[in-house]
């Protein structure tokens, strides 16, 4: 029997479709912008029903069980373009190019090809890694922990500055201030960036803070 496939969006949001109907609707979703938009709102309403339940605390052992299994099944972190010892120059150049393409840095790269900014300098080192920062920038990390940030944000409002943080072992350390602007900002990160660290950016009062006081504008992946 032919059904109006759009009308399945509400039962789908409630997980109320049978297996076959669900597969059919998911195929439809892939091609229907209207249903995807509608689904976003309905899913949110459906999820709020979870807060309507009065339930007990989960057993304390559940958290540890989840974390133990998660650690045992730790997925491989997505490989990022990175140079390798001994073949550094061409691979670092390829990484820089990949960054330029992925981050929309084409203009920036093309207009400043000869500038030895700190970001490019770090990236040019043998073994340097490139870690994306929420699609608006990236962190270049050298094997010795020297790192630089490239980030695109509008100029900071009066009395404010962007502050970079290096978070290692759960503790954020201030890593430098920058102002933002029309061009990509490049910053020397003032803390060593080791394996497992994360770099984040917040907007703070001018002069910076000792600990982040705002929610981050961007958080990098952990450095691998």
């Amino acid at each position, binding site marked *: 029997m032919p059904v109006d496939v759009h009308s399945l969006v509400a039962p789908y949001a409630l997980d109320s*479709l049978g297996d076959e109907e669900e597969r059919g609707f998911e195929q439809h979703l892939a091609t229907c912008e209207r249903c995807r938009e509608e689904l976003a709102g309905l899913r949110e309403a459906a999820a709020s029903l979870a807060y309507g339940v009065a339930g007990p605390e989960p057993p304390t052992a559940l958290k540890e069980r989840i974390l133990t299994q998660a650690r045992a099944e730790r997925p491989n972190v997505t490989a990022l373009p990175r140079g390798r010892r001994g073949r550094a120059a061409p691979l670092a150049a390829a990484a820089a190019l990949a960054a330029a393409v992925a981050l929309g840095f084409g203009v920036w790269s093309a207009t400043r090809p000869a500038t030895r900014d700190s970001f490019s300098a770090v990236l040019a080192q043998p073994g340097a890694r490139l870690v994306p920062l929420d699609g608006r920038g990236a962190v270049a990390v050298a094997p010795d922990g020297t790192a630089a940030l490239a980030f695109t944000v509008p100029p900071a409002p009066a009395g404010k500055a962007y502050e970079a943080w290096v978070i290692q072992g759960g503790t954020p350390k201030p890593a430098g201030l920058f102002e933002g602007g029309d061009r990509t900002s490049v910053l020397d990160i003032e803390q060593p960036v080791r394996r497992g660290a994360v770099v984040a950016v917040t907007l703070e009062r001018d002069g910076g803070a000792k600990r982040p006081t705002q929610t981050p504008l961007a958080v990098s992946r952990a450095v691998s």
Partner: protein
Amino acid sequence: MTALLTSPPPTSGSKGPRELAHLTDEALISLVASSDDGALAELYDRFGRVAYGLALRILRDEALAQDAVQEAFLALWHSADRFLAERAKASTWILTLVHRRSVDLVRREDRRRGEPLERAPEAATTSTAEDEAALGFQRRVVQEALRRLPAEQREALELGYYGGLTQSELAERLGQPLGTIKSRMFAGLTQLRDLLAQAGLEESLPT
């Protein structure tokens, strides 16, 4: 900036979830995508209670409810990358994962229950009064919004979402055409969304 470097924050030997407390749910998911188990722990602290309550409501069995929550958080662990491409709220995504697992399990166990208003068992709690108050407030707002829906829409949402029934099972149980069930679900969810927006619940839910 030198001043900043001379007075660094105290370092701590081990990463505690509280040190991630300043991050948004969405930022935590970014960290989970890079296999940060501290971020996973923090998300569990934020959503585990609601997740378990939901799973228990659907499954009516503590062991199964724990399985559902565990599977949902491991799905989060393995697919956090995929969330980044979506533009949903993290809370919606996490609770959707939990609901999905619970419904899958209840169907697999063939333990569907239809009675929408039976209460899950209450148990002794160790959470703070502040957490309790926030959860209690959210619960009242959602329950009040549900009460304000027309009875047949409320019934469709409760049997579908809490009962784990498919739309076809619902149509059969209620003796209504499938089209009617779909319309009730759509109207119910749309109205619920509007009522919750009016109640300002958006701001009070963890985001």
